[in-house]
């Protein structure tokens, strides 16, 4: 049996592929130490090469723009700017004036700037060194008349192996021939990795050198685990193939389901429209929420910005994060729940006292109304983000209309402060509350006069109504078997808010329970907000409802 070789690196994109590995063949340079002719000739050659290179880069930019999108295409816009960057060009000219040939001059200028970027000890900027090398090798290729590297005459698709792949090489890969690729170097934040991700090509970067003698061997590439196994044993191949088929089956089923459900409006057969929104914990989930058909964000948990820090985030930090989320949602509604800490979510720098009964203690709006500056800091950030799309504020743990009125007064103060600072915000920003205490449901008639929407947090509403902690295995049964009181409280709230012209959503775990969808439709719930993996299931279910 042949010996197997294992390599590990950082996986880019997902997926598993198997096939022969092929090393990228780069043509040997013919003229590398070309003797410098006179300076004027060398400078003229530089100018000509720059012009051709610029055309090639622009072509790549428009190709990438049409196949992948604007942010990927910007990589080549940067390349075009680097190509004309005065510092870079002056460095090349300086070397030519010092007596070097144009090719040697480009090589040494490339090295100077690549080294400079690498020395900055910043992952992002270091990764740009490969962009400098990419445009330099493009210039040299044009000057030496090399044909661009290609794997001619390959009939079978293969796994490409290279010491490094430049962004332009990546975007030029023939996707019908390439199963995936592996590079010895490279990092997940390189432009090459960004492109591979956008193209959906399984890839592995940073494996370290792979011996050329393995060229043409059969291999298994697992981008999820970040492994490449060359010449694997029979058993491993069988196991891999099984996993791969299972993965592809799920991926295919998901694809076809996505296609069938995605563009269906979530309308019941009786004509009741339900908005399908996503619950998210950070803006990194937005692209998957959108690709799963989210019509809005029903619950943006704002705690993540506080939990990941060692001290209070500043208004600007919060603003940036909210604004990014709002921009990504392109005008769709984004409901930001104000800080919901305390109880099971503790943050050291808040210095909250230890409580005997935290779930019934000092948490969420109760803390915010006491620590007004903390609350205002967040409200101002949310208000500023509202200038970039459609934002709604949602207050958690409300038990009385007074709490809402007090919050509204604080929001007004924030609005006035922003106005005097000439900062923009949506003056008609929507305000809603969570219905998660029995008190809120019982008082919903009064509360609905103060706000434009309700969102039911079923997890807390269940535990507060039944006096049973769902996390306690001794009483979870009580929670599971006593739906009726919860549904009645939701109905009371729904009727109250509808009478006052508002709308109501459900954003707790019950929203994703497909056995309850019909009941929610029956009491005219307007919105169901669930985490990303449940979006399509709920959408499909609503369209089947009466």
């Amino acid at each position, binding site marked *: 049996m042949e010996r197997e070789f294992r390599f590990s690196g950082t996986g880019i994109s997902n997926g598993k592929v198997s096939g022969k590995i092929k090393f990228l063949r780069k043509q040997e340079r013919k003229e590398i130490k070309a003797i410098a002719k006179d300076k004027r000739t060398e400078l003229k050659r530089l100018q000509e090469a720059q012009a051709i290179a610029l055309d090639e880069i622009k072509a790549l930019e428009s190709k990438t723009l049409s196949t992948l999108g604007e942010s990927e295409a910007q990589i080549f*816009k940067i390349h075009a700017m680097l190509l004309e960057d005065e510092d870079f060009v002056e460095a090349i000219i300086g070397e030519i004036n010092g007596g070097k040939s144009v090719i040697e001059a480009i090589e040494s200028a490339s090295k100077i700037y690549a080294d400079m970027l690498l020395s*900055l*000890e910043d992952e*992002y*900027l270091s990764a*740009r060194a490969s962009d400098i090398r990419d445009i330099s090798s493009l210039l040299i290729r044009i000057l030496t008349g090399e044909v661009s590297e290609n794997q001619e005459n390959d009939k079978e698709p293969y796994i490409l192996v290279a010491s490094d792949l430049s962004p332009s090489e990546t975007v030029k890969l023939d996707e019908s021939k390439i199963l995936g690729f592996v590079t010895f170097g490279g990092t997940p934040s390189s432009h090459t990795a960004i492109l591979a991700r956008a193209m959906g090509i399984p890839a592995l970067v940073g494996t370290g050198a792979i011996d050329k003698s393995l060229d043409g061997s059969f291999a298994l590439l697992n981008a999820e685990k970040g492994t490449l196994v060359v010449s694997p044993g029979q058993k491993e191949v069988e196991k891999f193939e099984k996993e791969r088929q299972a993965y592809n089956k799920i991926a295919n089923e998901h694809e076809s389901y996505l296609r069938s459900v995605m563009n269906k409006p979530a309308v019941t057969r009786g004509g009741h429209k339900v908005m399908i929104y996503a619950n998210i914990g950070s803006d990194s989930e937005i692209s998957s929420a959108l690709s799963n058909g989210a019509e809005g964000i029903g619950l943006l948990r704002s705690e993540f910005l506080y939990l990941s820090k060692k001290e209070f985030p500043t208004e600007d930090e919060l603003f940036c994060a909210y604004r990014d989320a709002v921009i990504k949602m392109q005008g769709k509604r984004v409901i930001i729940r104000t800080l919901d800490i305390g109880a099971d979510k503790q943050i050291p720098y808040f210095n909250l006292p230890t409580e005997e009964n935290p779930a019934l203690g000092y948490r969420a709006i109760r803390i915010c109304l006491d620590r007004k500056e903390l609350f205002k800091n967040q409200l101002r950030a949310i208000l500023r983000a509202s200038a970039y799309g459609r934002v709604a504020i949602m207050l958690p743990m409300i038990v009385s209309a007074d709490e809402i009125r007090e919050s509204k007064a604080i929001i007004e103060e924030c609005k006035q402060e922003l106005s005097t600072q000439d900062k923009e915000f949506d003056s008609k920003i929507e305000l809603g509350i969570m219905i998660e205490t029995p008190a809120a449901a019982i008082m919903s008639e009064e509360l609905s006069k103060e706000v434009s929407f309700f969102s039911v947090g079923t997890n807390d509403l269940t535990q507060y109504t039944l006096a049973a902690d769902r996390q306690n295995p001794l009483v979870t049964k009580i929670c599971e078997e006593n739906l009726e009181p919860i549904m009645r409280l939701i109905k009371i709230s729904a009727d109250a808010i509808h009478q006052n012209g508002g709308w109501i959503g459900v954003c707790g775990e019950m929203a994703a329970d497909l056995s309850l969808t019909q009941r929610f439709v029956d009491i005219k719930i307007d919105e169901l907000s669930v985490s990303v993996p449940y979006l399509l299931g709920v959408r499909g279910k609503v369209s089947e409802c009466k």
Partner: protein
Amino acid sequence: MVEFTHTIKAESGLHARPAGLISSAVRNTKSTVVIYYEAKNRCADGSRLLSIMSLGATCGTELRFEIEGEDENEAMIALKQICEANI
């Protein structure tokens, strides 16, 4: 001459794309722009991409923009907007 300071809030720092935006914007003005990273004693020509990138300005860095020219006030507004929205 006018000037303003900006503290970088983007997690990935002043990387290639925003540096490109700044340099393009500066080229569209009639002013000269010098960007100072005073804590590290570095400065950059605001019209030059590599120069800006070589500041190595990461998240939390305070940068001072010095703008001089006939349209310096408009230039400052444009640059402030780019900074606010991108870095």
